[in-house]
């Protein structure tokens, strides 16, 4: 697919309520992930790697940290003379109902109408995966679909919050259930859809004039009979963040080399903001096992089954197990942490002990002093 055929639209905010801990001061899209990334890096890099060069990011509130992260879009090669990154902050009155996608799209109607690209790819920011949208585009044209939705087959990542599709052997979506989970394997949505720009404009305008506001129910499900909606199955590794514990587990999954090689493909790199930190420094007497460590860390203690983001300091005698420690945290001497998720800039003083459990990791909010 040529870059100028498809616009990307990212919903930076949807499903924030599912991980309230992490979205107090930020949008879904800017939740830190995997040692150096934010969730938005995945869909954004996928779009760029698939040849798209125009991406609009729809935000609603709390988007300062996202703006800071994305900047001009340079790190994703989206700071360009023609097209590039468009921040689309809220415009007009906030009449948020359901997930607000339809209102958001209505509020950027001028952006959609003034674009010349034929297609639009709409993506949520809560799924971590490395997908080539060119394959989806090819599928979409071959199937002569009006809308293509991307799904995964397997155990639904959540019990009651998913969209689940019934797809016939032709790849056509025959049924679509909202807010569903399933105990058995099913086809669950990963929050990405491709359609023509004109069709999207018509559907959004139609919903707005009928006072319909739920994207999945009113724009998609209601049109199941009239439109040819096809399902593209994605088979690589994917992690949808539906709760705090799924966030924790998705991070921990990175210890598996197979997961890493599916998410971090040299030809399809995941871009992120550059921090110019020095490489991680391991001191004498440090001990690190089965962990992901980012640049700028200084490790003098023990680290096991952990993800350390950029610039984390682990002092002598500290013992970290099963933790996700975000940017610039400091772990004091002889402090012991087990199943702890520490948000950015948390300081643990010396000789502290804190422990959660696998099913219930303890969360320490941004800037906390323990």
């Amino acid at each position: 697919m040529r870059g100028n055929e498809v616009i990307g639209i990212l919903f930076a905010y949807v499903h924030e309520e599912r991980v309230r801990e992490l979205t107090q001061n930020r949008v879904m899209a800017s939740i830190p992930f995997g040692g150096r990334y934010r969730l938005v890096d995945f869909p954004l890099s996928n779009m760029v790697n698939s040849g798209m060069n125009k991406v609009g990011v729809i935000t609603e509130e709390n988007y300062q940290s996202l703006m800071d992260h994305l900047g001009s879009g340079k790190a994703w090669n989206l700071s360009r003379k023609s097209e590039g990154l468009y921040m689309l902050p809220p415009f007009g009155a906030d009449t948020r109902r359901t997930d607000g996608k339809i209102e958001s799209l209505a509020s950027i109607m001028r952006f959609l109408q003034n674009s010349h690209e034929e297609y639009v790819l709409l993506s949520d920011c809560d799924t971590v995966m490395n997908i080539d949208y060119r394959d989806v585009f090819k599928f979409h044209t071959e199937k002569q679909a009006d809308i293509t939705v991307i799904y995964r087959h397997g155990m639904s990542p959540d019990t009651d919050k998913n969209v689940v599709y019934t797809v016939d052997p032709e790849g056509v979506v025959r049924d679509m259930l909202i807010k569903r989970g399933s105990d058995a394997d099913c086809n669950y949505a990963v929050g990405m859809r491709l359609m023509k720009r004109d069709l999207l404009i018509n559907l959004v305008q139609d919903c707005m004039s009928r006072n319909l506001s739920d994207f999945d129910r009113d724009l998609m499900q209601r049109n199941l009979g009239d439109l040819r909606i096809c399902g593209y199955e994605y088979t690589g590794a994917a992690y949808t963040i539906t709760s705090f514990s799924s966030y924790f587990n998705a991070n921990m999954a990175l210890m598996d080399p197979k997961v890493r090689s599916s998410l971090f493909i040299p030809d399809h790199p995941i871009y992120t903001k550059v921090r110019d930190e020095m490489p991680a420094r391991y001191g004498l007497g440090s001990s690190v096992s089965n962990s992901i460590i980012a640049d700028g860390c200084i490790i003098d203690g023990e680290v096991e089954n952990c993800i350390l983001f950029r610039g984390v300091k682990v002092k002598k005698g500290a013992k970290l197990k099963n933790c996700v420690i975000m940017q610039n945290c400091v772990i004091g001497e002889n402090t012991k942490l087990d199943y702890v998720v520490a948000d950015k800039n948390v300081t643990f003083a010396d000789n502290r002990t804190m422990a959660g459990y696998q099913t219930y990791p303890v969360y320490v909010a941004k800037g906390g002093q323990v």
Partner: protein
Amino acid sequence: MLPKQEVVAMLLAGGQGSRLGVLTKDIAKPAVPFGGKYRIIDFPLSNCVNSGIETVGVLTQYQPLELNEYIGSGQPWDLDSMNAGVHVLSPYEKRKKTDWYKGTANAITQNIPFIERYNPDYVVVLSGDHIYKMDYSKMISFHKEKGAAVTIAVQPVPMEEASRFGILNTNEDDSIYEFDEKPKKPKSDLANMGIYVFTWEKLRKFLLADDEDPKSSNDFGKNVLPAMLNAGEKMFAYRFEGYWKDVGTIDSLWESNMDLLDPNVPLDLSDADWRIYSRNPVMPPHYVAKGAHVQNSLIAEGCNVYGQLEFSVLFAGVYVAPGAVVTDSIVMPGARIEEGAHVQYAIVAENAVIGPNSVVGKRPEEVENKDEWGVAVVGPDCKLPAGSVVPPKAMIDAEEVEK
């Protein structure tokens, strides 16, 4: 005419760096990787930006492809500004007197038109093969205060080593009265660091005069500076305290990388107020596996460490297999150390592969004749087969391995 810049920096990056052997076979010396994620040129470039110098000319001549690509628009160093920024300056054909850069001074002479576009008061001349953090703005203030024609940064070196350096003999007020190139009996311990601040008007005059002299080798140290001294120009030595190392040889390159692992060496790269910028690799954080053992080392993004690592520097995307042992070594981007391989006191260059159970380098205490010991170097893209042995001080070239 572009807006005036008070200071323009000219970075001499054209040297072949033949003493680095295979490491500079296909790249210019300033592009040699350093410190886990940097290249040597990141240091002078970052120093310029951090000192407020926004116009930098990089003089290239030998194998410039990779260096040009690395510098690109200058964006990683914030040097992609509209009216200033970094410019790569290669020799070019002229109507008269077309030539390669014949010497350090000639390289600047050939680029007088570049410098004049900015109408500067001062020109800073830097080398592309030194590792140090220095605030040039302090040196420029010193230069202004003294009203000097040229100020040369110097560092005190141990007297017994002074005969290896270019020594400056100074009066009490730090004005220079003599240049002593590698003196047998040094009179002073002030070594020339190869960092110069010139008053542009004066430099221009002496460069043009030097250019007219057919006998001159057009070199700063040999010709231009002595000519300025003879003409009675005011020349001062500026004492710099802090870490500074010329990494023009395999040993000094290795030592300087090892210095990063020594907390007592004053070269802190984590200082947020004086960052060393570089073109960052786009790779995930590195992974240290269960059973791996890492001590006193630097590890960059994208590495996968399953084996043992001590006193070593791993660049981006290096793989250390289970059972491999890497000690006191530098492993450059994309290299692979396979199972059971033993790498010690070595430099493994970009994308090299050390086959299973190979042995590269030796500890100095295991070598009887000390003259036979040295850092072993495995060149870029060398694919060493299983069970290879690379003796200390050896330098392996990819083409030789294929034969």
